[in-house]
């Protein structure tokens, strides 16, 4: 027999970083240091990765010490984004730990004279028949981990995992409850000084003149830094830095800036710009079909702010021509690559180390403020400089999630069955992350004396989930479709990655129109969806959510129910959501019921937490959020102008996880946003009989939709 199974493949992160010792180390104090390239951004990933490592190595989770990502020591896993961390880092760690375990067992077997298959490991102690024992730490001098990982060793089967697959308490939470500094904002270094950067109010304006006189008189000021259109201050305390910045602002002269679009006609703007057009997918009908009517609908979503509770912050310290940067960036290596371009330095003398920031929902200003700190710290004579953005700058200069206009045409036959489907997206690109191009993506790089052009956002390829087109290809079995993406080549409003990229807008459009068509047919919207889905996992989450929500509850005046479904990126987590809303004057979302399938759920409570959080954040986007601007500046620069959902507005959220331990895990952080958006919109229709196709669904929008309705 010469048939052989294909060689087992190494996980992608291991192909890039094969050395075992770059992931796992046993320490002299009896612990295991696990060093992933992915970072904690409030999603609990560090705990899930610790669970996987603990399970494979047979140590207690408390024996694991998770090392923060740093370009000095960590495997390069690119960026922590796209709900890929469990998939990439988790898979790599599971493989690495399985091999490390096997290597130790081989040496222990020799040392103890017991066959490896007879040995057990309990919290790192290796024992066998006849009461023989040793441990990882006794053997660590004899077992070299300076080997490349092989695909040979197999990780434990599902049944033998005792930690992964079970809810455990997150490792970072005690620090946060007991006020032990963990955030970069609280990071202390000897001699730390404070920096602030001067940014324009007018969009795209450049600093052309600066009178520094008043700022120079501020007590505590250490330096004023100017590099072309980039200007900032360093002071020995935060209040002095703020005061100096205020004085500097009064002495600033700015160019006129660049006009912004009409916020009240986003679709008109998006559809009038030069674009790059891509056909994302087509499906040809096998048989001729004769539509009797075509529904044409347009859906929009506005620009959305990350609006993390903390403004972005970074610390930088120069030592000669070497610089150390502490950052809450999602990608330490990618940030380093951009810093190297701006500084015209090789990458080696730049060390970028991760420290947690507040919740990160995509490419926010973390990377921008890191360059700010590096530039200001040049003038600090070797002292570390901490730079923190203002709330105002966080809400106006950080990248936003891109606005979208989505036009969907559905061809229907005489029975209102879908026989053709065309989905076209107009949007800015959804990603302008650092470290991926020959030019830097960092804000200050466009301000310095020899400025780089502002990077125009692009879209990841469809194979990576796409960008504006994310989730635009239906999972339903329509006989024919054409999906087209138009990416804007202008970018008056700065955009980059925000949770789901285009997924939220596309799912909103698809699921809204499906609901409408089900209504035309007089068919239950859940039955209609199930009839058009072949994928059992998709059907299961919809059925589970329906069961849990008691679908469909009896119609009551003033109450509406709606459903939404998507598989994130069409390759990730399955999620179905059912919304119950109350619509009297304003829309109030009372309850969200969700079912989710992420494959193997490593930390079920962590998944539930992510889904709850995604559902609540999506509710906030749908009901309230919209970046406001006039023709010259962003005007939603405070919490008053950019309100988010509050405690008394938050719905009850009920989550069911469908555990599939035999299926490779995927992430959960972005699974809920699309389905929840659609579920709320469909519930609004159920309640009020009006389709609101422009987000956010506010009272004004409902009134406008009612006026348009026939």
């Amino acid at each position, binding site marked *: 027999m010469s048939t052989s199974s294909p060689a087992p493949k190494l996980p992608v992160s291991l192909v890039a970083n094969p050395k075992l010792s770059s992931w796992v180390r046993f320490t002299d104090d009896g612990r295991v240091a696990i060093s992933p390239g992915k970072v904690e951004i409030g999603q609990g990933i560090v705990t899930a990765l610790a669970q996987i490592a603990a399970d494979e190595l047979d140590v207690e989770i408390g024996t694991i010490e998770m090392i923060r990502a740093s370009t000095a020591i960590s495997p390069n896993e690119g960026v922590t984004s796209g709900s890929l961390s469990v998939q990439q880092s988790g898979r790599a760690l599971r493989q690495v730990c399985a091999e490390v375990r096997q290597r130790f067992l081989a040496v222990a077997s020799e040392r103890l004279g017991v066959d490896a298959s007879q040995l057990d490991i309990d919290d790192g102690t290796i024992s066998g028949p006849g009461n023989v024992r040793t441990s990882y730490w006794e053997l660590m001098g004899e077992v070299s981990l300076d080997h490349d990982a092989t695909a040979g060793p197999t990780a434990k089967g599902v049944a033998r995992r005792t930690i992964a697959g079970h809810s455990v308490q997150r490792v970072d939470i005690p620090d946060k409850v007991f006020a032990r500094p963990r955030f970069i*904002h609280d990071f202390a270094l000897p001699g730390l000084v404070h920096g602030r950067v001067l940014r324009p109010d007018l969009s795209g304006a450049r600093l052309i003149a600066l009178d520094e006189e008043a700022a120079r008189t501020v007590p505590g000021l250490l330096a004023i830094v100017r590099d072309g259109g980039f200007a900032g201050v360093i002071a020995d305390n935060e209040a002095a830095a703020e005061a100096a910045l205020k004085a500097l602002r009064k002495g600033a002269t700015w160019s006129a800036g660049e006009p912004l679009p009409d916020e009240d006609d986003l679709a008109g703007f998006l559809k009038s710009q030069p674009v790059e057009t891509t056909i994302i997918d087509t499906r040809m009908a096998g048989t001729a079909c004769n539509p009797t009517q075509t529904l044409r609908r347009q859906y929009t979503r506005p620009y959305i702010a990350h609006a993390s509770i903390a403004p972005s912050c970074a610390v930088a310290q120069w030592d000669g021509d070497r610089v150390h940067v502490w950052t809450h960036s999602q990608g330490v290596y990618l940030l380093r690559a951009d810093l190297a371009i701006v500084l015209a330095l090789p990458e080696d003398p730049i060390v970028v180390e991760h420290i947690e920031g507040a919740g990160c929902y995509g490419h926010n200003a973390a990377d921008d403020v890191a360059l700010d700190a590096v530039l200001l710290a040049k003038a600090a004579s070797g002292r570390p400089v901490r730079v923190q953005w203002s709330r105002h700058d966080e809400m106006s200069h950080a990248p936003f999630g891109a606005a979208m206009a989505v036009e969907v045409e559905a061809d229907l036959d005489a029975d209102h069955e879908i026989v053709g489907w065309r989905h076209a997206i107009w949007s800015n690109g959804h990603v302008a992350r650092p470290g991926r191009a020959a030019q830097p993506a960092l804000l200050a790089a466009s301000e310095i004396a020899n400025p780089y052009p502002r990077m125009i956002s692009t879209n990841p390829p469809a194979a990576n989930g796409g960008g504006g087109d994310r989730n635009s290809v239906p999972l339903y079995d329509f006989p024919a479709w054409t999906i087209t993406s138009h990416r804007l080549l202008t970018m008056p409003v700065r955009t980059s990655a925000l949770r789901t990229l285009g997924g939220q807008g596309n799912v909103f459009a698809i699921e809204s129109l499906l609901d409408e068509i089900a209504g035309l047919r007089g068919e239950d919207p859940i039955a209609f969806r199930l009839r058009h889905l072949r994928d059992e996992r998709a059907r299961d989450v919809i059925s589970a959510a329906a069961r849990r929500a008691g679908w469909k509850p009896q119609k009551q005046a003033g109450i509406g129910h709606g459903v939404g479904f998507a598989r994130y990126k069409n390759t990730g987590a399955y999620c179905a959501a059912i919304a119950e809303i109350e619509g009297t004057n304003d829309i109030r979302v009372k309850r969200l019921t969700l079912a989710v399938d992420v494959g193997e759920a490593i930390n079920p409570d962590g998944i539930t937490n*992510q889904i709850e959080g995604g559902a609540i954040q999506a509710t906030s986007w749908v009901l309230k959020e919209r970046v406001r601007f006039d023709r010259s500046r962003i005007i939603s620069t405070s919490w*008053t102008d950019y309100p988010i959902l509050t405690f008394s507005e938050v719905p009850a959220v009920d989550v069911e996880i469908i555990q599939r331990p035999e299926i490779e895990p995927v992430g959960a952080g972005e699974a809920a946003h699309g389905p929840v958006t659609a579920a709320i919109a469909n519930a609004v229709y159920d309640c009020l009989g009006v389709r609101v196709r422009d987000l956010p669904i506010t009272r004004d929008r409902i009134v406008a939709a009612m006026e348009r309705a026939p």
Partner: protein
Amino acid sequence: MPTIQFRLNGASTAVDADPDQTLLDVLRGQLGVTSTHFGCGAGECGACYVMVGDRAMASCDMPMWSIADKDVVTVEGLGTVGAPHPLQRAFIAEQAMQCGYCVSGILISAAALLKRNPSPTEAEVRAALDRNLCRCGSHNRMVRAVLRAAAEMAAS
């Protein structure tokens, strides 16, 4: 600069500060109390809340003169790992956060609520936390944690 005296987490504290300087600045700067977080600088988000008497108040726009002789409590003063406040235990038990940046302010709002009203209803908890913003969507877990802490305090 005048010396301003107040009680911080039960201890007499005297700082030389500009009376118009904010309490948040003094806490995080001179006093190295970092649980109290900057969020917006305008009293709109709750990340910087401290307890003054039995009220949760923003420290980012609170001038130092206004806290002279007052009792100020931050999370450092709520409890310790060895002797945690019931709220601290409950937030761990309910895994009541994602990023946790807003949590110190929310613990303070909740502690102030429980001082005034030891057995609040869920609606009262939500109302008491309404001035605290959470962006990660951990609201319901936090509400459950506050109710759990209240129940524990009532039982002890």
